[in-house]
């Protein structure tokens, strides 16, 4: 807890520092402005060495006395003061909550400080990058998504939880998984398996796949939320576990894997503490069709969007590997995609009893 307090104090200091700079500007009759790192595609680079997506150095000057910036300027400090309040009170809240906390009408106009959550969410991200802090450090969280089971004991907000005894639902991964909230205790797992889909995760949990495979079984319900990503990062680095990712065989699945591995464009500033470049793609591969003798009728045709997306991926520097190029090209050639559930055509437990063990044994993954 002491550590937590320290980090909270540091965050608070950053928030107050940002405000003090503006107050100083006003005293000196200088037009107040805030430099905000640009989060646009143009300011995102792929760091080949670290193999992650990083935010560039471009900054945007947000000025109060600019008709186009004034509103956002005000909102930035509104969110900052709300976060300071949260830290002062030692409470955490959801970003939706924050939206309601800070929403009120402006003076006697018909305008509100925020007209919708889609207006407040980017402001939070702006604030994160500006003072180089994390959403979690601002005591904000997103809604919980993702569950985990496996041979690991964690301490979650002081409660010791044995993740082997989580029933059918698993342990819900909280949005904030920083070490002041989650501490790892005993770990007997050999690797982490992240599944894209809740349904597949259920199948594997029911079959107790994780017991004999000695793995931590995690699902992300689609695109991995920050909590899940941060947890994977911590498990990879603190528990030294390899990460395997099992997603649908379609461009979207590839993208989920890519975000886990290199980070996303929108949260490029978080890549350093979330991206796991060593994460391995275990399936579904476009080659699995032949390899596992799946019937033709389980495939789905790629739609135009899929094709477009796959073509874009060919150009991503982080997919610029021979193996990945072959993978994507095969998909484009076959013009079909596969869902994880397609494996059930070979039997309900085919995935846990044959597919995964086979793949792991043959080291048929991509990195």
């Amino acid at each position, binding site marked *: 807890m002491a550590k937590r307090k320290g980090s909270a104090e540091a965050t608070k200091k950053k928030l107050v520092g940002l405000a003090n700079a503006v107050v100083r500007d*006003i005293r000196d*009759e200088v037009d107040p402005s805030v430099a905000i790192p640009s989060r646009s595609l143009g300011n995102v680079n792929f760091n080949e060495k670290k193999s992650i997506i990083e935010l560039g150095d471009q900054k945007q000057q947000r000025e109060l006395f600019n008709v186009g910036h004034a*509103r956002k300027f005000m909102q930035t400090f509104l969110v900052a003061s709300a976060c300071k309040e949260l830290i002062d009170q030692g409470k955490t809240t959801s970003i939706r909550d924050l939206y309601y906390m800070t929403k009120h009408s402006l003076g006697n106009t*018909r305008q509100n400080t925020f007209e919708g959550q889609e207006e407040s969410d980017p402001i939070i991200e702006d604030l994160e990058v500006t003072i180089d802090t994390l959403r979690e450090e601002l005591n904000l969280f997103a809604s919980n998504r993702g569950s985990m089971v496996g041979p690991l004991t964690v301490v979650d907000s002081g409660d010791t939880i044995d993740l082997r005894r989580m029933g059918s639902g698993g342990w819900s991964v909280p949005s904030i998984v920083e070490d002041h909230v989650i501490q790892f205790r005993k770990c007997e797992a050999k690797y982490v398996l992240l599944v894209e889909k809740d349904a597949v995760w259920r199948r594997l949990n029911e079959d107790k796949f994780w017991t004999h495979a000695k793995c931590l079984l995690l699902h992300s319900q689609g695109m991995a939320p920050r909590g899940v990503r941060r947890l994977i990062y911590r498990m990879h680095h603190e528990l030294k576990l390899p990460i395997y990712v099992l997603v649908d065989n379609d461009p979207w699945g590839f993208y989920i894997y890519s975000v886990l591995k290199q980070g996303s464009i929108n949260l490029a500033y978080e890549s350093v503490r979330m991206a796991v470049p060593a994460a391995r793609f275990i399936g579904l591969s476009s080659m699995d069709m032949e390899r596992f003798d799946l019937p033709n009728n389980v495939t789905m045709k790629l739609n135009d969007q899929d094709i477009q997306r796959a073509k874009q991926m060919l150009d991503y520097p982080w997919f610029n590997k021979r193996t990945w190029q072959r993978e994507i090209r095969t998909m484009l050639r076959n013009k079909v995609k596969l869902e994880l559930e397609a494996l059930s055509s070979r039997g309900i437990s085919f995935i846990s009893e044959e597919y995964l063990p086979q793949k792991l044994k043959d080291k048929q993954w991509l990195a």
Partner: protein
Amino acid sequence: MSSSGQLSLLCADTTTERSRPKAVAPKRVTKQEPTPPAPEKAPRAPRAKKTHRLSAEAMAAQQREISVSEFFTKNRHLLGFDNPAKALLTTVKEAVDNSLDACEEAGILPSLTIMLQEVTDDRYRVVVEDNGPGIVKQQIPKIFGKLLYGSKFHRLKQSRGQQGIGISAAGMYGQLTTGKAVVITSRTSPTRPANQFEIVLNTRKNQPEIIVERQIEWQVEHGTRVEIELQGTYKAGRNSVDAYLEQVAIANPHAKMSYVPPKGKTPLHLPRATDDMPPEPGEIKPHPYGVELGMLMKLLKESKNRSLAGTLQHDFSRVTSRVAEQICEVASVRPKASPRTLTLAEIERLYQAIPKVKIMAPQTSCVVPIGEELIRRGLEREIKADLYVSATRPPSVYRGNPFRIEVGLAYGGELRSETEDDEGLLELKNGDRSQGPITLIRFANRVPLQYQQSACSIFKAVTDTNWKPYGLAQPRGGLPHGPMVLLVHVASVWVPFTSESKEAIAHYPEIIKEIKLGLRECGRKLSSYLRRQERDKLQAKRRGIFEVYVGELVASLVKLTGADQKRLHTQLLGMAQKHTGGEEAAAQADLRSSRPDGALRDTAAQIALDENGQLPPDEEEAEQVPAKPGRSAKGRGAKKKKVVRKTKKKGQRG
């Protein structure tokens, strides 16, 4: 009956006369003559066949003098008595013109009372009373009972009346339609008795016939009262007596008027806007520029001067001995030559020499403008607008007559968004749904012109001017659109009307050019106002944005840093003001709360877009409300209320 053909031949109505033979002639003549017959030749063809119709002697028996009164009896439309509604207005107009002229010539600040009494549905009694100098007893019958009798025709001096037809024609019209005599009461001084006459006009002889003549008790110290009963109809609207008097008030801010309308409507009191009499217009001699050859010949022939140079110097304005010599030199005519013995060739050379010599513009004193200041005050008195602009042009000359153009305009304010209505008093101020055409009011020597707008050179000058650069929409070849009243005043020693009814000014290029220059002068002021208004609105909007956010920002900053809230807030507001054009602009923008005009809305919309891409609510509403065609019952009710309010206000002032 028999004289009708002759009469129409004599009066300008030659078109029918000529078209008749033309229609017949081609049938019979085309065989012999391949080319169309000349107009002179054509009438002969039918006549040759029908020799039995009339001999020259027989025709001579029918040829006799036509009295002017007789002529106008048959052509009353030439004097503005074409229909009952117009007749009523013309009668009021002639009486008011005479009264104002008389007062001004005597140096008396005019106070007029105008009454319209309804006798029957289509019969009205017009009573106009002034505080003028009165009329000498002997002159009364002639002035009111004889056409073309007056003091204003034979001189070059700016006045409302010109020909000496107006009031006697009105009396004649009344007499023709109702059989009632004109009643005139006049008193020249408190020490003299007041004389009352009842006069009818003998149309054959153009002579007054006195029916009753008496002395009466009259409480008025000096002045004249004219009563004419005539067939007429009282109508509200743009061409009503009510609208006319309001316009008279604009152009005559020194006149006080009380108006008692018929049908029990509330009397209207129009107080003076100034107690200063307009300067007395001077009488002048013709100016050499623009004098026509025939006129020059006549002036030289009639000259009493011995030398040509002397004639030029004394019978024309602004000709000095130097100028006279120059003219003679350029024309190669001896300055000492006798003006009466000059040959036609010499006169023609003189005529051509005049434009080559630089001659001063005619005296300004002879044409008296209303004045920029008083035009604005006149407009302010009658119209509630945001902007009043006026321009008085320097004098100019057409056909040797000096004239001055004045332009005034009122923009915005109540001219905006009012719906159309039949209420006469307000008609002046509308036609002004902000998208509709502007209201043009025309004056000639301070007299409002209400009919034949499109035949008038003022209208031509306005429609020929491109108003778009000045911020008004304008359909091709039409009046500009916008919440605006445009006033144009032509003052001249002789206003060239297109007809005796004095409804439209003839298209003299010099006059049109000057009007256009005046319009542009006002247009520039209007556009700079509109731009300033836009800029201020923009700044106000920006300031509004800043001010709203500054409050919020300060609250957050205080929470974060614990800084002094008040100090921070004042400092930020000060900075915001600096960024939006300073305090002055702020104060101005606060005063003006008007909305932008359609033409300029685009720029406004650009600024109005805040981060949400939303327009402020009032802007949106303005966008959605289209120009309302027709008049709704609701609009009518609202307008009625306004009339009451307005007259009340006037009553208080008066």
